[in-house]
């Protein structure tokens, strides 16, 4: 399981010029200057931290901090 704090840490480690604390937990990451490379690196970070591989068809579920938290809680 990954905590909200871990999720925010992984996001801030992989996204330049974005203050992760300013992103509301239910806001879409893509609306906060997170581009495709950032998102790719973030997903790799989640996979590494959780030991869970995210299949392609699940990628779209990881669009907000809350959704990411729920996704890994359910796994």
């Amino acid at each position, binding site marked *: 399981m990954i905590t909200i704090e871990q999720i925010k840490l992984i996001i801030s480690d992989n996204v330049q010029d974005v203050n992760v604390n300013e992103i509301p937990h239910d806001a879409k990451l893509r609306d906060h200057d997170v581009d495709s*490379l950032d*998102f*790719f690196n973030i997903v790799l970070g989640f996979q590494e931290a959780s030991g869970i591989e995210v299949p*392609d*068809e699940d*990628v*779209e579920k990881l669009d907000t901090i809350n959704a990411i938290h729920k996704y890994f809680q359910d796994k």
Partner: protein
Amino acid sequence: MKFSYRKYQTGDEVDINDLYHLVTGRTRTIEQHAWQWLQTPGGESEMWLIEAELESGVKKLIGHHGVMALEFSHYGKAIRVGKTENTMVLPVFRDKILYPKFEKKFLSAYENKFHALFSTVGPKSAIRLRKAMGYKAKHAWKKMFVGDEPAISLITINNVISRKLHLEGKFPQTPSSVKINDTRIDSYVDVDASTAFDYDGFWERVSKNYPLTLARNKKSLSWRYWNNPYRKHLTLVLDSEASGVAICVISFRKKFGVYLDDIFCEEKNALPHFLEILYSWSKKEMRCFSIETYTTTDNMESFRSQGHCRDNSWLQSFYDRDKEVQLMPRKVTPLGKAKGIKDEDIWYITPSFFEGR
């Protein structure tokens, strides 16, 4: 939703052109697609398609990544270089896939077929992505002007109206060449002589003086300029008693007016001299007092001259003050390194690198 990828198959060009239209708003014919992707002098280009499997089981094209195969030269040695083009994903699918994961797979499939790879321009995110794929992006595109101040600045203002009126009609409707002798610009225009010019022999002789750059043999020139389905070009053979011969290609662009697409000569340090000859000729023959062109920051000194070629006009500096610097990502592959290409820094760049879309 499941996503998969595969290589281009004959017949995919209809869907690729539809995707291209949806993403860019531009239309492209089957013939234009064939020119860019199937007829390039470097042989088979790489076209990779990303598909989504819809609930009905039908596969829909949602993304594309392409690498145009181009013939290059590295100090006279023929090499094969890939230019990334048409990297696009339908907007509604951009947050449904991990696009970099796909490009990483594509790159590993084609990297060893090319000695080097490059991209021309792109948004910041695309440049970052290329850097993550091992490209170096140290050098920026730089607009250069051949002309006099204040003519450069004045023509920057009215480039569309006045150039269109005066110049568009001067460009031939068929591939043409003009030979100019710098000692007799007024009297020497011999179309037949330069149409019969030995382009292959000339390139074989001069390519040894150039680092990594596009091949300019007859096959490549024919593809890029004489058979270009998008615009007509005028090829000039500039003949100088002092500096030998230069081949120069110009075209008319609605945005730029007269545009220098390409120039190459026997010795790179003679470029400024040939730009002066071109300027004298264009003033007389085209009533054109400013020619625009592009190179990269690592090549600027080759183009800049004491006379009429400079990297900016004061007005352009004003217009460009807030514009983002456009970097050119380049990568020498392991195959290129094995061929003796040491780094990504020493290229000879003209606007010819932009060709294709």
